[in-house]
């Protein structure tokens, strides 16, 4: 007999395409906001640690806002506990911290560009 978890998936299957679509939407949001954070960090003239802290704080804020505005209303209504994203995303780590990885290169690029342009 299959394990409890397999049985659960067989009873209520997950549509792979929807999952992929959700993570792609999240990825787009993360990469675009990361570039915009880079622009603002550059214009503010932040240097070294201040810039990285700025990035980490703002991308976590983006995740929280995304959760509160898009995920929470239906997720809480369907009986999930708060801060649980398993209704739409697989893996809580990817949802909360994935933005830090995905957008980092874009952030450094635009940060450098605008820092150079502003302080020149």
């Amino acid at each position: 007999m299959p394990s409890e978890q397999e049985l659960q998936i067989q009873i209520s299957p997950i549509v792979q395409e929807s999952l992929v679509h959700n993570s792609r939407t999240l990825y787009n949001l993360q990469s675009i906001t990361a570039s915009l954070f880079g622009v603002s960090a550059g214009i503010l003239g932040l240097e070294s640690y201040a810039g990285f802290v700025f990035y980490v704080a703002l991308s976590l804020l983006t995740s929280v806002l995304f959760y509160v505005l898009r995920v929470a209303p239906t997720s809480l209504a369907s009986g999930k506990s708060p801060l649980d994203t398993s209704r739409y995303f697989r893996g809580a780590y990817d949802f909360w911290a994935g933005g830090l990885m995905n957008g980092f290169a874009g952030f450094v690029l635009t940060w450098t560009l605008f820092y150079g342009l502003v302080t020149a």
Partner: protein
Amino acid sequence: MAQVPVQTIHRDPQLFYWILFPITIVMILTGVLRHYATVLMASAPKKQDQKTTREQRSLLHGINVRGNYHVLSKPSLTTRRDALITAYESGAYLKNPDGRGQPPPNPMSDPSAMEGMMGMMKNQMAMIIPNTLIMSWINAFFSGYVIMKLPFPLTIKFKSMLQAGVATRDMDPRWMSSISWYFLCIFGLQSVFNFLLGSENAASQMAQQMNQMGPQGAGQMFGPGVDPNKQFLAEAENLAVIEHHSVLDGVEQRLLAGIKV
């Protein structure tokens, strides 16, 4: 410890207009061009003859039955399983049933295999040629300039990478030359392409390399050099060991548990 004074270098603002913006614009346009070139060069999937299609589809049929057996009733599964196993073991679905047990032909001599390799070669070329061209373009025109200062400090190890072509020993590694701006563009422009071309673009070579390292399961399954007879026999064995259970087992209890009075 005395504070190291911050180095300031007075640069001509024209550097931005004549070096920074050209490199950035060329990088973005190359990405867009690469995306559309990949779209245009993508060859339509080749038409396969009936026997080959039957061979592949029947194997997929077995795999799907194995993956979704829990939605079938027990007699239904048994009938399917028996039919599939008999057909697999007798080789009824094989493209050429006479060739059983013989070693597979050399993949190099198979024309359909060459097709696939040509596709890969084309993709590789579409990545390598623009990169080489742009690298040599930047080296020829823009080497030896210091154009920007990074907003974060780096260790001295990065000096040779960031300041290639600038032979100044005491300069802070934060100053970067045009070639390092090119490298930053390679890594960071993915989000710009996402914005411009949608997230399924083929513009960034970084993403493409990630894909190549990724799963190759679907492509390899019917790839050249794989003996379909062995695949069939393995699949027959997998089907034979299925222990049937249905999602409808115990559904009454689940329903009753879900009803709130």
